C-alpha cells in the first residue's frame, strides 16, 4: 500500500461522493455530509491505493484512538484506578490491575506526577478514555512507569512521524551520534533517557526542532551540535 502524493485540505472540502451501495469506513478528519464525504480538519489529504482516505493534520490536542501508545502523567490516585492526563479532552483512567503481574494484593507503586507509557483500550467519544500498561497478551512489553530521563511535548503529527518508518532524519542522525532511549507517545508527549545527562539535554532540545527541518538541514544541525560537544 503506497501513499499517493498528498494535497493540502481545508475544513469543508469535498473529498468523494459516497457510492450507492456498499460499506465505507470513514478515516480521521473526514466527515459524512449527506451524500458525500468532506474534510473537517486542515492538513494533508492522504490516500492509499486500497481506497483509504484520511487527513493528516498538525494539532496539539490529542483525540484518543484505540490501540495508540501514549505517554501520560498520573494526576489522581483512586482505589480502583489512576487518573492519567494524556492531553486528551478528558482525563483517562488506568486500572490498578492493568499492569503485568498486578493483583489486588500486590499493586503497582505509582504516585501523582509519575510518567507512564500505556496503550489506549477504550476511546469512545462519550466516555473517558481507558488505558492499560500491558500489551494484548498481558505482558509488560515496555509499558508501565518510566523512571528518570526527561519528557517534552510536541504536536501529535510529529510524534506519529517519530514512530513511523523510515525514521525522520533528525532521529536517525541523533541516534547515530548519541546513545539514548526514547518512548514516543502518540499524544504528543515524548520521553528521552540516557545514562549521560548532557545527552538527554541535547536530545530534548534538538529533537522538537526537527519537525520543520528538511533532511539535509537536520543532519547539519546534529553535526554542528556533536562537533561542539567535542
Amino acid at each position, binding site marked *: 500500500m503506497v501513499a499517493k502524493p498528498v*494535497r493540502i485540505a481545508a475544513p*469543508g472540502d469535498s473529498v468523494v461522493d459516497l457510492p450507492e451501495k456498499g460499506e465505507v469506513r470513514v478515516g480521521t478528519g473526514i466527515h459524512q455530509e449527506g451524500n458525500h464525504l468532506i474534510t473537517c480538519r*486542515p492538513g494533508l489529504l492522504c490516500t492509499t491505493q486500497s481506497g483509504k482516505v484520511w487527513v493528516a493534520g498538525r494539532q496539539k490536542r490529542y483525540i484518543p484512538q484505540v490501540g495508540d501508545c501514549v505517554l501520560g502523567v498520573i494526576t489522581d490516585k483512586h482505589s480502583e484506578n489512576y487518573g492519567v492526563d494524556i492531553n486528551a479532552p478528558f482525563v483517562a483512567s488506568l486500572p490498578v490491575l492493568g499492569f503485568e503481574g498486578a493483583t489486588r494484593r500486590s499493586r503497582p507503586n505509582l504516585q501523582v506526577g509519575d510518567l507512564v507509557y500505556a496503550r489506549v483500550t477504550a476511546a469512545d467519544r462519550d466516555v473517558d478514555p481507558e488505558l492499560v500498561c500491558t500489551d494484548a497478551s498481558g505482558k509488560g512489553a515496555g509499558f508501565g512507569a518510566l523512571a528518570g530521563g526527561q519528557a517534552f511535548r510536541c504536536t501529535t503529527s510529529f510524534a506519529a512521524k517519530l514512530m513511523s518508518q523510515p525514521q525522520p532524519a533528525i532521529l536517525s542522525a541523533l541516534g547515530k551520534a548519541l546513545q539514548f532511549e526514547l518512548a514516543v507517545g502518540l499524544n504528543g508527549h515524548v520521553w528521552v533517557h540516557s545514562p549521560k545527562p548532557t545527552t538527554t539535554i541535547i536530545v530534548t532540545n534538538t529533537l522538537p526542532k526537527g519537525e520543520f527541518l528538511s533532511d539535509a538541514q537536520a543532519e547539519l544541525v546534529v553535526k554542528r551540535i556533536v562537533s561542539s560537544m567535542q
Partner: protein
Amino acid sequence: MTRDGERSPRQLRNLVCERSLLHRADGSAKFFLGKTCVLACVYGPTSTVTRKENAEQAVIEVNYRPMAGIAGTQERQQEHLIRRTIEGVVLVALHPRACISVIIQVLEDNGSALACAVNAACTALVDAAVPMHRLFASVCCCTTQDGELLVDPSSTEEQEAAAVLTLVYTSRRAEVEAARPSISSAPMMSFSSGQCTPQQYLLAALAGREACQRLADFSYLSLHKSFS
C-alpha cells in the same frame, strides 16, 4: 471620491494573518484588517465543570476582551454573536461533554473590529484543528449619511456612518485544492446598527459577499502556506 488611505469604496484594507503564535494554546491566530488587529486563541476540546457540560455535544465558550477598559454589555453581545457563528460551523456532536474556549483580544481597533475578531476566531479554530464543516469569513460594511456604501470602514468612517453592518459568510471548496472557494449565497450572521433602507441593506449584503469571497481566497492561501 477617495477614502483616507486612498481606497475605493469597495476596497478592503491590507490583510495579514499569523498562525500558531502562542505556545500554550491549542490554536491561535492574529488577523489584521489594515491597522485593526485582533488576536484569537482556542483551547479545546477540553473538560469543563459539570454545570456547563452538555451530554450530547461540545459547548462553545467565547471571551471577548476589548482593547482598553473592562468588558461590558457590548462585549457580551459580541461574544454572543461570535459564539452563535462558531456553533453553526463546528461539529459539536463529535466531542460530547467537552468545552471549546475561544478567547479574543482586540489589540488595535481602527474600525471593523467585530469582523476582524470573527476572522481571527475562524483562523484560530482551524489552527487548533477543531472539526468544522465550513470555514467562514466576515466583513463590515457601512452606509454614509449621503447614502453611499463603504466596505471595510475605518473607525472615523464607522463613527460618521448612518448604518454599520457586520456580515459573516461561510465558504467551502468543491474539491481539495480547488481553484477558488465558493461562498454561501446568504449570510450566516448579520449584525447591524443604525438606520438604512432595505435597498441599502441588500446592496451592502451583496458587496459584503464579494468582499468575503476575497477574504476567503486569502484565508485558503494562508492555510496552504502554513502547511507547505
